[in-house]
């Protein structure tokens, strides 16, 4: 700062001059350059030391640590809330909305037989089962190693499960069509029209898969054959036809069916209950 004559910016302007404000010739740079009477290069000084510089006029209020933490927490909560929106509905809202409740007259085993037929068709397609009566029963068995990885990722809604072995003796022998699979349990409807919830833990289930494909083989079947096939289909389950029985270890299966599709199952040392 020069100790010689200082320019007083608050000095009123001489009355004679009229300030004309325009964007082509802004006032501030012109005024400052005009005031720098002592230096030899007022424009250079303006450009290098004045233009686009900020001068702190007084102490601004600094944000305290508490305030900073509060802001950070708020920011985290907001991001978490955003993430949470993508997750599925919890137990309470599901129950409140009655999403998985069957209506009064809907608890009938026969009503779920068409679902079971659909599942058999899905299995036939998934496992590539041979058409019926093309190969005798003894030779029709496909290789187990190719079926296991597909079955592990398959959907079991509509399948017929039977409890073969369980730590709880009351569950042994329960059998029914799976109408809902959750992370820890199967909800099945038994042949006696009872809705049962079977926990997956501590149980070994038997899963029956048809040996032959249940899908209609050609699109051009005559109408009578189709209608008779359809009416015959809906009365039977997978156990009424030649089928393959698999053992399903419930302890290793406690995942939601959607999660299971992408999961890699590792071999475990022991499968004791």
């Amino acid at each position: 700062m020069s100790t010689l004559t200082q320019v007083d910016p608050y000095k009123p302007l001489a009355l004679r001059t009229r300030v004309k404000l325009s964007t082509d010739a802004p006032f501030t740079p012109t005024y400052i350059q005009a005031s720098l009477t002592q230096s030899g290069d007022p424009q250079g000084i303006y450009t290098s030391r004045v233009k686009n510089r900020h001068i702190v006029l007084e102490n601004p209020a600094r944000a305290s640590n508490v305030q900073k933490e509060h802001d950070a927490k708020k920011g985290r909560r907001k991001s978490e809330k955003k993430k949470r929106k993508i997750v599925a509905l919890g137990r309470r809202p599901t129950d409140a909305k009655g999403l998985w409740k069957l209506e009064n007259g809907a608890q009938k085993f026969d009503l779920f037989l068409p679902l079971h037929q659909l599942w058999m068709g899905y299995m036939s397609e998934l496992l590539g089962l041979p058409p019926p009566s093309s190969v005798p029963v003894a030779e029709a068995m496909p290789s187990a190693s190719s079926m296991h990885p597909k079955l592990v990722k398959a959907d079991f809604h509509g399948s017929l499960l039977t409890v073969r072995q369980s730590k709880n003796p009351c569950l042994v022998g329960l059998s029914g069509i799976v109408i809902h699979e959750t992370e820890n349990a199967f909800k099945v409807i038994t042949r006696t029209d009872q809705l049962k919830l079977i926990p997956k833990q501590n149980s070994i289930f038997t899963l029956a898969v048809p040996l032959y494909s249940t899908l209609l083989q050609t699109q051009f079947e005559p109408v009578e054959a189709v209608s008779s096939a359809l009416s015959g289909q809906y009365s039977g389950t997978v156990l009424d036809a030649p089928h393959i029985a698999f053992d399903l270890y419930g302890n290793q299966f406690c995942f939601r069916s959607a999660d299971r599709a992408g999961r890699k199952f590792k071999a475990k040392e022991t499968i004791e209950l």
Partner: protein
Amino acid sequence: MARAHSRVMLTNGTLPSTQLNQFSAVHPFTQQLDIVFPASDELEKALTSLKPTYYKKRCTLSDFFEFASNSPSRNITALPSTSECADTWCIDPRGVLTLCVSKSLYEQLGLIGKKLPFKGCPEQYVIRIPVRQETESVAVRAKQKAALKLWDELREDGLGKWNVLYCQSGACLGTSDSHEVVIAQPQICPSADILIPIPALAPIPEESTEDWDERIGDLFEWVGMACIGAQRLKANDRVNPYVAVYEVPTPSYIGDVTRITWAAFLHQSFVKDALDTVTLDILRLNGVKRIDDLLCRSYLASTTDNHAFVAITRQGCCTSPVGAIPDTSFDTARDPPLRVPENNAEDTGCFILGPGQNGNFVFAESIGQWDARWG
């Protein structure tokens, strides 16, 4: 010699005794009976005239269960003759089929049972099914039959059908295609010139408990050695002291000893008959029970020999899930104490009976570690 963890209980008293009377009913499964006594022709004749009979059948458990439920006699005692103790069963005279199964089989059968509370043994469960049809509902019955059928199917590949030994009170049937009748023959071993102790079966007033225990222990030791025909009891035995040191309890005399052994599946009625022959007066008890045995009086009641005594040792079937049924009122609501069926288990009872109508007796019972009979 007692195994580690085995427990022995000793009682003494005078005849007649409820313990003796109920002895055969409390222990339904007996696999061996040894009777040792100073030689007496009439007792030997009386005992060998008893003919214990049992039946043998090879069938599945479901078939035998059907047979037992439909049989007119209410009193079938059955046990499979198997050395495998992991999954076994028995039917006791109360009419209850008791299964003792391992964990994996229990989880497959689907019947509710009780876990054996013993530590150190493999995990096993006990399931009880009443044999009579009327006691259970139709659905429960169907479930029980399905479970038995499943067990038979699981056995098909491995051990196959059961070899069942059974006895039933009532009419004796002859051999047929379905079963085989077996009459257990006694093994009679006379031994001459044996040192026989004169037992004093009541405690002497000044005697301390330890002395009493030691004296009676020596007596039971003699009985055990007589049961196996040990050479140490011979009067002329001069064994090298480095091999064995044994002295017969004093006072003793030299005489002949007879041992009669039945080793078979023995029904409780036979055990009762043997005890009766030794202790009670059969004529007085039952009037005209045995016309041809008019000369056969109770041995001990009528003997004039003050040194006479009889030692009866009973070995139970250790592979049966049911050991003793203490409550002999045949109340099936109260379950008998639990135990682990094991080949090397202990279940022995020994009576030493003294002479006279109201003679003294001592009774020692020994059970193994995994038996809840005494808690």
